[in-house]
């Protein structure tokens, strides 16, 4: 297997982008990434696109063909594949692209993550999101993704003594980070009181505990490391790309407060990358809800199971903490266009490792980790990135 590097990145702003369509989003992010990588259309061998549910959001399947076409590349007959793993669709696209390059099958591969959520009426969205959970045995009886994470939160609080304030601190931290991120949906700092005073969604989770519906697109250009310097002065190595699955329904997990697919993926990712959790300088994790980040930092081994709340409260995951988590603002601060998120996380990590993260720059960032989950953990995908030069 060859070494793979990221040679270009590009992202749109995330938010309610009323005047941008699905196609506009992809085009903007894709062009930025291609320009960043100094790549020409003729160089592109393949395209992988992560998209959760264009079929339901914009009644469009066959996304691969659509995206190649609106990029003006249909004339080059570039193969394009759309992949789906619920909210981890973007990370899955990165993984598939990584495999294509590592295996020697393709050289220059475009990875994109795109989601256009706001073309659908608000009241239809809760039902749409129920397709990432078990429709038959969770959604059918009235469960929503929020309600499942709320049940995880309640059990975590009961079992480990995690407090509501500790959970809320995740949102406070991530919104503070997002305030320094020009592409984020939310640019305003919030307090714990703001979180705990926001309307209930599914007790104990409130509106400010939940990431938002948003539109957005992000893109990456991958190349084999051996030719990466042709395209960029700052190639970023992908040192691990691991995907694991688990049960789709939360009620079938061995331990409701542990996302075992993340634990399994992390173990293998650290082995493959040759690092221990302590060596990770920073991470972009899947904070679809505040509690999801608490679970992530435990399951990724940054702290012990049950201590995620205290770890956060003590500032260990703050941008100036021992292990900064979600320096971009995460899903909470940036917004969560489902298929785009996994690719956006990688874009942030590359920016940090290049030293170009502006106000959010983490000192001496060398190794970054991206963590993405589908639904309540039916899929976990972890990538580790390293700046070697």
């Amino acid at each position: 297997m060859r070494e793979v590097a990221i040679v270009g990145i590009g992202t749109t702003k995330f938010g309610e982008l009323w005047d941008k369509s699905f196609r506009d989003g992809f085009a903007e992010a894709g062009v930025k990434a291609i320009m960043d990588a100094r790549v020409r259309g003729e160089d592109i061998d393949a395209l992988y696109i992560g998209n959760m549910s264009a079929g339901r959001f914009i009644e469009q399947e066959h996304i691969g063909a659509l995206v190649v076409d609106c990029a003006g590349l249909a004339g080059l007959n570039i193969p394009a594949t759309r992949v789906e793993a619920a909210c981890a669709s973007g990370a899955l696209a990165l993984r598939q692209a990584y495999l294509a390059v590592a295996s020697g099958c393709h050289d220059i591969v475009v990875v994109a993550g795109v989601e256009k959520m706001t073309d659908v009426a608000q009241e239809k969205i809760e039902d749409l999101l129920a397709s990432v959970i078990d429709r038959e045995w969770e959604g059918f009886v009235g469960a929503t993704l929020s309600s499942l994470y709320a049940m995880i939160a309640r059990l975590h609080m009961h079992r480990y003594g995690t407090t509501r304030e500790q959970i809320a601190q995740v949102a406070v931290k991530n919104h503070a980070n997002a305030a320094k991120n020009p592409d984020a949906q939310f640019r305003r700092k919030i307090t714990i009181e703001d979180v705990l005073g926001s309307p209930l969604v599914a007790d104990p989770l409130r509106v400010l505990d939940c990431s938002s519906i948003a539109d957005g697109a992000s893109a990456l250009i991958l190349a084999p490391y051996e030719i990466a310097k042709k395209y960029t002065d700052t190639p970023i190595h992908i040192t691990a790309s691991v995907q694991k699955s688990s049960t789709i329904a939360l009620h079938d997990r061995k331990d409701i407060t542990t996302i075992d697919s993340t634990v399994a993926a992390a173990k293998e990712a650290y082995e493959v990358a040759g690092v221990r959790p302590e060596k990770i300088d920073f991470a972009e994790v899947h904070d679809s809800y505040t509690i999801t980040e608490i679970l992530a930092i435990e399951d990724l081994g940054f702290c012990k199971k049950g201590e995620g709340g205290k770890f956060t409260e003590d500032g260990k995951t703050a941008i100036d903490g021992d292990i900064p988590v979600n320096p971009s603002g995460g899903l909470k601060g940036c917004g969560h266009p489902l298929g785009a998120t996994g690719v956006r996380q990688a874009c942030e990590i590359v920016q940090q490792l290049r030293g170009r993260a502006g106000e959010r720059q983490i000192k001496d960032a060398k190794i970054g980790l991206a963590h993405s989950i589908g639904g309540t953990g039916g899929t976990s995908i972890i990538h580790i990135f390293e700046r070697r030069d």
Partner: protein
Amino acid sequence: MTVPRFWREIENRYNLIGTKCKKCGTYYFPPRSICPKCRRSGVIVKHKFKGTGEVVTYTVVHSSPENFERQIPYVLAIIKLDEGSTFTAQVVCRPEEIRIGTRVRAVFRKIAEENKRGVIYYGTKFVIA
């Protein structure tokens, strides 16, 4: 949910009929046709659950899909049936009445309806025992 898809699961939803693996003795609700523990060597048979169990965790839903809106706020829980299976169901009670560990029993209720002219989905919810 379409008519045949709902109809197929009527005995599961109305009567908590799940499955059991005779080889390892594990009970499954919702029903599984393959035992994750024994896989190809498993022996799956139907099993009617007693309908009693306890609350593993719960939440009170305030933001729901469209056809559950009139029931807001409603209690959703993961329930561990006495035979050992855990699954998700609504509990009909006031939010203050439920705790982790509360004992519950099954009752027959309307879950939802397709729309005013469509099929009514009946099924099992729980009340505090």
